[in-house]
């Protein structure tokens, strides 16, 4: 038992098959896909193959894929690029209250250019109500963006329904599927999406490669202007090895999807059950069923997330937290806040995201180490002491 890495949302090892596919493109097939000579054309073919692999994963055309460098860039390109390209039609955009910061801050940038952003609230599970999105749409709305699945609480949003509303009102719909794509089946045609972000490092691919799916014919203003790469929509020499890795990871994700989802769901539920029964005063965050198969998230009352994270790390267990103290900006996760969690409770946020290779024995190892870590921190918590006293008073 060498430990348990359960922070796959933040980072995961590149799969060996993916790294193997990438390796030849560093020093041997190093060409620039824009070069007309043979070295360049070899790279161009590899790029095209990767484009096809990604397209197959999400059921779109290869030319509907724009390669970018990160999920955040995909989201910025989508939000800024789609809004700027449509500003003649209107200046309102609608996002949910639990979008990734790259969506929220991109929208904030647009506000400086005269756009207006409406944030649609979520319920206690982090679910967006499609009806509320429909209500928020008005004649000035040009873009709606609601994520496919939330990275902090794992909740899977009803994007197909939201997309339907948007379509009926002629509004472009983008979904941030960075946490979802490669981990749950995603079919952009069936879902009716105009645009969708995904990132390789969320499903066994490398950092530095991500993509925006953009439905053919949808206008977009580039974020990175310059050369003709990515069909004039994203300039800059293509990161061929990383894109090749993204392609291979997409192919593997597609082939293994069903098995993986089934296996991880069982494991996740074992983890959730064990954590909720192993320690008192722990709450599950996010939806119990409509959630990513690899995602388990909690709030542990009376203690703070960063301390828990450090305590677990000393036991070889790596997790994440949305507490104020874990963030560099010292703010509680806006997701937990938007879900209406008591701010003090939200400080005890704990997020576990399982690797494909995670086994039962690792989950059980966590379930063994989790209670003592919590106990130690609670013993030194003034809030826990107060809670115990109040409970004593009640029972007296």
């Amino acid at each position, binding site marked *: 038992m060498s430990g348990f890495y359960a922070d796959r949302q933040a980072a995961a090892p590149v799969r060996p098959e993916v790294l193997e596919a990438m390796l030849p493109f560093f020093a041997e097939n190093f060409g620039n896909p824009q070069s007309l000579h043979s070295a360049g054309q070899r790279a161009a073919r590899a790029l095209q193959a990767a484009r096809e692999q990604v397209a197959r994963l999400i059921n779109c055309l290869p030319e509907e894929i724009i390669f970018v460098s990160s999920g955040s860039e995909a989201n910025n390109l989508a939000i800024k690029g789609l809004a700027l390209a449509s500003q003649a039609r209107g200046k309102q955009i609608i996002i949910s209250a639990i979008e990734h910061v790259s969506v929220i801050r991109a929208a904030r940038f647009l506000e400086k250019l005269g756009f207006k952003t409406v944030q649609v609230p979520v319920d206690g599970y982090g679910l967006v109500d499609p009806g509320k999105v429909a209500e928020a749409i008005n004649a000035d709305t040009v873009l709606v963006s609601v994520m496919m699945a939330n990275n902090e609480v794992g909740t899977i949003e009803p994007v197909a329904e939201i997309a339907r509303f948007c379509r009926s009102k002629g509004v472009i719909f983008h979904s941030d599927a960075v946490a979802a794509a490669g981990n749950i089946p995603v079919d952009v045609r069936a879902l009716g999406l105009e645009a969708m972000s995904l990132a390789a490092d969320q499903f066994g691919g490398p950092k530095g490669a991500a993509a925006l799916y953009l439905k053919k014919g949808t206008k977009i203003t580039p974020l990175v202007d310059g050369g003709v790469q990515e069909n004039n929509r994203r300039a800059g020499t293509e990161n061929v090895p990383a894109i090749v890795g993204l392609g291979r990871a997409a192919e593997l994700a597609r082939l293994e999807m069903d098995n993986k989802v089934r296996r991880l769901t069982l494991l996740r539920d074992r983890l959730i059950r064990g954590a909720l029964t192993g320690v008192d005063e722990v709450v599950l965050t996010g939806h119990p069923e409509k959630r990513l198969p690899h995602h388990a998230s909690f709030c542990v009352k009376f203690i*703070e997330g*960063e301390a828990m994270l450090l305590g677990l790390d000393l036991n070889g267990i790596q997790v994440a937290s949305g507490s104020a*103290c874990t963030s560099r*900006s010292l703010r509680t996760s806006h997701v937990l806040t938007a879900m209406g969690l008591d701010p003090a409770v939200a400080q005890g946020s704990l997020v576990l995201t399982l690797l494909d290779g995670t086994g039962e024995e690792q989950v059980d190892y966590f379930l063994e180490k989790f209670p003592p870590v919590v106990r130690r921190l609670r013993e030194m918590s003034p809030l826990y002491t107060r809670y115990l006293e109040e409970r004593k008073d009640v029972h007296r």
Partner: protein
Amino acid sequence: MYTDKVMEHFMHPRNVGTIPDADGVGEVGNPVCGDMMTFYIKVKDGRLEDVKYQTFGCGAAIAVSSLVSEIAKGKTLEEAMKITREQVAEELGGLPPHKMHCSNLGADALHKAIENYLNKQTDRKPEAEGEEKQSRDKKNFHCPSCDFILPERALVCPRCQLKLVRCEHCNEYNLEGEETCRHCGAGLI
């Protein structure tokens, strides 16, 4: 991120606990912001005979309270009042910039406990309460990054240590480097 010294205190915090019959108690912070510390002291012959604490907060906060308790114990009240956050941070081998406010908490909570003891001695109403009441009447300015209530004319947030710039138009605080005021939209120069 943390020095070995911080981690050592985090793993083995000294003097954790409460003192039921404490001579002074000081509490700072607030669980909403993610940090809260309560210090308990026993005083004998003008010295801190015992110091205990409870902490709700990050690893740095736990290490800070542990270290503060350790250096405070046995000191005279006067000496203990001189413990500064700089000293605390330094003895811990340094803290990341956005964790510097945790070193405030430790010294502040200890000082509050000592003041609480002194106030009990002179039997006068704690000053702090009046102050707090007053500040509730004024408009509070919050740090745009960590929401901390800022002191008057702050240049740097005492909590998250980020540099602040005041909007000339609406008087609100913004982070250094921002171009337009996040409160009123005016340009910041």
